[in-house]
């Protein structure tokens, strides 16, 4: 059983509504620099034939999560539903999970001396709703659910590897990306806009 996020890069305009909705819901706006979902923009090629793409990154709720492997207290754990969850009550803020994740997903929140990350809005999913980021997307390019269902819904041409991401062989991330061709290889340059 695996839960996954789906991301349609071909439709994403990089508006960051998902990122803002996440910050709003989880109150992490109080911690500058902390994101549980973060959108980045990239460009490829050269004038007058440049390319662009955007990537909305969050926890990939991996099959082999590096964060869980290194967490000394067991605060970071793989839940029954397949998501990777975090138990605040036993986290001592050692940051090892933050350092271990190749995607840099877990974030140290200094104000509470704990590591936090995306919990796939399990309070909402428990009520049968979508995570906040999914329902925030104005381009309807995010989804969340059973991995097999998402593959059935969005087709087989989905990837988990991009030129900007670490190899999926490390942690087997549960992220399904409908990628733009220019995001698959080469050296995309991040656009700080």
């Amino acid at each position, binding site marked *: 059983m695996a839960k996954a996020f789906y991301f349609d890069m071909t439709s994403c305009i990089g508006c960051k509504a998902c990122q803002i909705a996440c910050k709003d819901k989880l109150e992490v706006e109080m911690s500058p620099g902390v994101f549980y979902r973060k959108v980045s923009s990239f460009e490829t090629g050269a004038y007058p034939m440049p390319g662009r793409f955007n990537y909305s990154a969050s926890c990939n709720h991996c099959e082999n999560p590096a964060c869980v492997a290194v967490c000394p207290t067991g605060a970071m754990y793989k839940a029954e539903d397949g998501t990777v969850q975090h138990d605040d009550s036993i986290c001592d803020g050692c940051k090892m999970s933050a350092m271990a994740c190749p995607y840099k997903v877990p974030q140290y929140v200094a104000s509470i001396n704990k590591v*936090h990350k995306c919990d796939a809005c399990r*309070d909402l999913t428990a009520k049968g709703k979508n995570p906040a980021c999914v329902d925030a997307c104005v381009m309807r390019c995010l989804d969340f659910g059973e991995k097999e269902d998402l593959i059935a819904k969005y087709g087989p041409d989905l990837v988990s590897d991009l030129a900007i991401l670490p190899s999926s062989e490390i942690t087997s991330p549960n992220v399904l990306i409908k990628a733009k061709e220019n995001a698959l290889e080469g050296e995309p340059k991040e656009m700080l806009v």
Partner: protein
Amino acid sequence: MSKYLEKVVNSQFSRRDFLKGSAVATAAVAGLSLMGSRSSSIAKAEEEVSTAHDPVVDLEAQGEWKTAACWNNCGGRCLNKALVVDGVVVRQKTDDTHEDTPDYLQQRACPRGRVRRMEVYAPDRLKTPMKRKHWQPGGQEINGELRGLDEWEPISWDEAFQIVASEVKRISETYGPRSMFATSAGEAGKIMNAVGGYIQADGTLSWGSWYEGPDYFGMEDGFGEYSTNDRLDLRNCELIVMFGANPAWSSAGNPTYNFLQAKKAGAKFICIDPIYSTTASVMDAQWIPIHPGTDHALLLALAYVMLEHDEEMGLVDWDFLNRCTVGFDAEHMPVIEGVEIDPKENLKDYILGTYDGVPKTPEWASEITGVDPAVIEELGIKLGKDNKVALLTGWAPARTHNSDSMPQMFMALGAMGGHMGLSGHMTGVSCHYGASNGGKNLVGSGSAGTSSTKGIFSNTVREVMSQSEMWDAILKGWYTNGPGEENRKEIDIKLIYHGGTNAHMQTMPGTNEAIEAMRKVEFVVTQTTFFNTDAKYSDVVLPVNSMWEREEGYMGGGNREILVNAPKIIEPLFDSKSDRQVATGILEAMGISEKDTYGISAKASWFNKYFGAWTYDEDGATRVPICTITQEDIDKYSDLAEELIAAGKKIEPQEGKIPFAKFLEDGVYTVERKEGDNFGSIAYQAFREDPEANKLRTESGKLEIYCRRLKAAVDGYGYTTINAYPTYNPCLDGYEQMKAEGKFEFQVINPHYLRRSHTILDNVKVMREAYPNPVLINASDAAAKGIAEGDTVLLTSDYGKTLRKACVTETIMPGVIGVLHGTWADIDPETGIDRAGSDNILTGNKCTGQRICAWNTTLANMEKYDGPELPADVDMNDRMVVFE
């Protein structure tokens, strides 16, 4: 955990400074104790906020989701919901009132809507009325040169009302109403009108030359009325050509998703723009980069290509031109008031160069536009009448000087291809409220029902200055009121009232001149929510609150399919008042009652709107009320009903589409669209079928490629003149001037940016964190200037200097710099250099044509800054007033 508001404040600003800043003390304590009075439940809510990771805790169960207004001039109008826990908004969401499909859309909010609560609770909100320390009422102690530099002292609302009322009266009585000026008066207009009125200002604002021309030559301006078809018909297009339009940034919300449906249905996209935008990227568009301000030349060359290949390929829709337009060729010139127009003044012969010897060939246009002649040739052929083409433009390409004839040429090109009046064919403005979706409005708000009961508010000063001459006019003592020096009007402005929400010192051209103008007069007053540029250079600042805090609530639409209804959801924060309450307080100090001013209470005005809110029945033609209102509903608000009935309003039960309670709960009425319904729209359909029976509002009743009224209107302003047919006018501060003079190396354009709506929201930390607001520079230009990614760059124009960090990119045309519209000028008093990258530090007060406010080409130079590196915006201090 500390109280919610304190938490917000402490996180973004030190508590010591906050209390100091709000010593104010009274105000801050008032604000905090307001929260404190509900401390136990708030603390509980906060505890749950802090443990939101625990699925057992359900914050939603503690509060209520309410519709929360999102009110700015962004071009969208989406649905915001706020989770209110004991009077405090702790979370937001967007439309989930129905299942979402591409036809029947949820009105999903953009990031600007999603951060509304972070703005409402922002630590830098103005908390108390205040007065500049070295300014005193009475006209004796002004020290105008200290505006923007002086210290501030808190004053009570009573003092503030007395000061403003007495200054308005004193200045009007001493110097006459012509000495008072407001470019964005809002409710404050009533205050000045109570003593005779004031001089106003107008200009082409965001529209550029789409502001005034379309009425004369036969199109709509794209604001509330549209010449484009509706969004479902967009899917019938084969080719969508977008000029200067990036809805992903400037019409956030659903419009780009609507364009995506057209792409999925098979439409190809071409984007003509100095920037390869994220919209162009998502639509897989062909990008045609173009020198800013030269689109008219490209349009002429496309028309040339169509004429050149017409015989072999049948590109021109002669039937449409001959039946539905005047002035295209010598055989179809208008006869105006019995006078025949010189047949040489036709567009076709101008395109062919028959009389001026200059055929407007792709090669001719290429020199001006930078577009390859082969690309122009290829595109011109695609625009032929047998292809289903949408020619869509944002206002941006006409938001340049001397652009008065460009919209008319846009219309003419569309008419040549016959891309009007048919499914899949369209020509017109597609931005702001109308981005991706044209047609008549399908909903409307009811009236607020407020009006003066005494008729005491009339502006006897019927004078309007140009918004791109006004600051300069105040400084030089006259403004242009028609051609020639004999039409100059002398002025001596003594009072400036910033009463609206538009912050015109930072949204209109020439911020540096605006600052000097403020420093010249006797009294400047601003009512606003934050310490923006208008407030900073004032003498008295009055803190107004948000739409969330107002009894009158908000009801309004945006795109044609939705009406948002957002009542008050929280109590006013700090010592803030609504604009209406501020106007009432000042007018009462002048001896005029609230009843005389507004007729009815704010709450009654909220209730009144429900009775008039309207939509169309399924037939798409019969107007019906949105709300079913029963006698029971009316009885529930019997005090308001009685007040409205006493004021002569019709308050009776009515039959509508949805119950009153549902409209309250949903907070939105959305017209349910589906293919084949009666809510679609094909612009010009009846006109095309029978132009004689369905005349346009133009002088001839047809589309006017020769337009006498357009020329008369533009020439009449006294700045620059045009021809009645759309000949190309190189623009002031444009590409040709840059090449000819050699003084400047770059053209500056001002794209709208997701961080803010114009200037609103630019203070919100989460937005500053998400969007760094760099200056966009082409990689080859950066290399030539030794500028690397992230370097601090100094931009210099004829009007000012500004700093920004560089975003070095291949996605902007060489020779063009992107200075993103809408930051709040932040001038270093030591160097005189703006640190905010403010677009209007680089623009100035020059005026052309129809009182054009020009932005999308300013000439500037660029260098790597040799001073201290600019910090990231998110790391800059909040702009808060600290009282000594």
